[in-house]
């Protein structure tokens, strides 16, 4: 039985020698690098922020996590939409080369795949990871559901 497939549009991005894909619906625009403003913080994945169309957009270098090293040079910022519990915000991903819009069928990720992998697609003989930006970029940690104290007491008494 073949795995379930979806036909969608994707944006291919390049990080050094590797290419990755993001669902085109999650992409806002591709912009030339602009000044990064840095201020103190403790979220190591975030380099700083850029000003874009009046918005202050965090710059998140995902290369360290995806290819094991930070980018020394960058050609564009791919501005993507990052979904949070109650809102969507822009996040700028530095990329090293041109981006390309393609149409392909995505094979959904399996349980064995890393959390940041939303699926896989085949393009020009390459198998390319489709990125799950919600898992790849930092954000608030969802609160763990708590067990009511009464339940714990009942279990302890058993």
């Amino acid at each position, binding site marked *: 039985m073949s795995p379930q497939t979806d036909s969608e549009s994707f944006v291919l991005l390049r990080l050094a020698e590797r290419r990755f894909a993001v669902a085109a619906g999650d992409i806002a625009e591709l912009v030339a690098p602009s000044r990064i403003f*840095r201020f103190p913080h*403790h979220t190591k994945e975030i380099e700083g922020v850029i000003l874009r169309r009046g918005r202050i957009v965090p710059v998140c270098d995902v290369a360290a996590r995806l290819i094991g090293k930070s980018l020394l040079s960058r050609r564009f910022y791919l501005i993507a939409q990052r979904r949070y519990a109650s809102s969507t915000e822009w996040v700028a991903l530095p990329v090293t080369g041109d981006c390309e819009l393609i149409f392909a069928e995505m094979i959904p990720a399996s349980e064995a795949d890393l959390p940041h992998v939303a699926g896989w697609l085949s393009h020009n003989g390459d198998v390319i990871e489709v990125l799950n930006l919600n898992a790849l970029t930092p954000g608030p940690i969802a609160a763990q559901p708590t067990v009511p104290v009464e339940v714990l007491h009942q279990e302890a008494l058993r």
Partner: protein
Amino acid sequence: MRLPAPVKSQPVRTEQIILFRVSGHLFAVSSASVQEVRSVDTLAGAAKEIALAGIRKVRHIVQRGEHSLYVVNGAMHFGLPPSPPALVFVLRRTRTALLVDGIEKMTTMTRLQALPQAFCNEERDWYRGVTAIDQTVVPVIKPEGFLTPDELFLLDTSLQPAEPATEIGSDFTNEASTETASQDAQPLLGAAPYGVKDADFAQPATDDSAIAGTAPGIFEELFRTPELDGSANTSSFAGAAPAVSGSFRSPDSNNSISTGATPYSSRGVLFAQLDSDDSASFPQ
């Protein structure tokens, strides 16, 4: 034929801010949150040294009336390289006096964007949000974010006198040693100590309140407004910023004194504000 009535544009909503530097980084603080700006020289005689291993950013305490202000080193708080501070901001409605390198300027912001949610660590307690001033992005600090309730508790506890070593039902209290301990603790006191429950500080604001701003008192009432552009990330400010009394002087100016306010001590006060709110925590 009647012409349609002209549409009245909404007045621009603004908030007056102070841009200041700490270790080369630029920050902003609402001017309404700053009660006084003093030269660090004026603290030399008034500040007592305090050394708490877990909170290295607080090295001094200033007694003000029956309250104590903890002097927070801004560079250490933000994890920046040390730099010689020249000024201290007494932050309104907190127990923090913040050491900074200097003031860049006073200006007005028309838009405060909530800190992007990608920033998900301690910085969420440090900043109300970010704003763009002259095409530069500046974080706007949250005055109550310099000392957490836990840190305040530790600091307050360190100021309390040693409790007599008595136990319920114990008949063997060593009165002599207890007395000695109390006497030893005296120089640390200076005022009746009080714990977290009595402290006049705000809990770290939630994201929503951060968007709405954290300026206290009248400022808060005036400036709690709907958003400028409908974006969930953006907040705006109603009305004009409250009038700022006082004047800025260079740190080495000897005769600097604010006008229209009654600072704690006129000597060395570079800037002070009229109490535009009910900041009863710092009676002057």
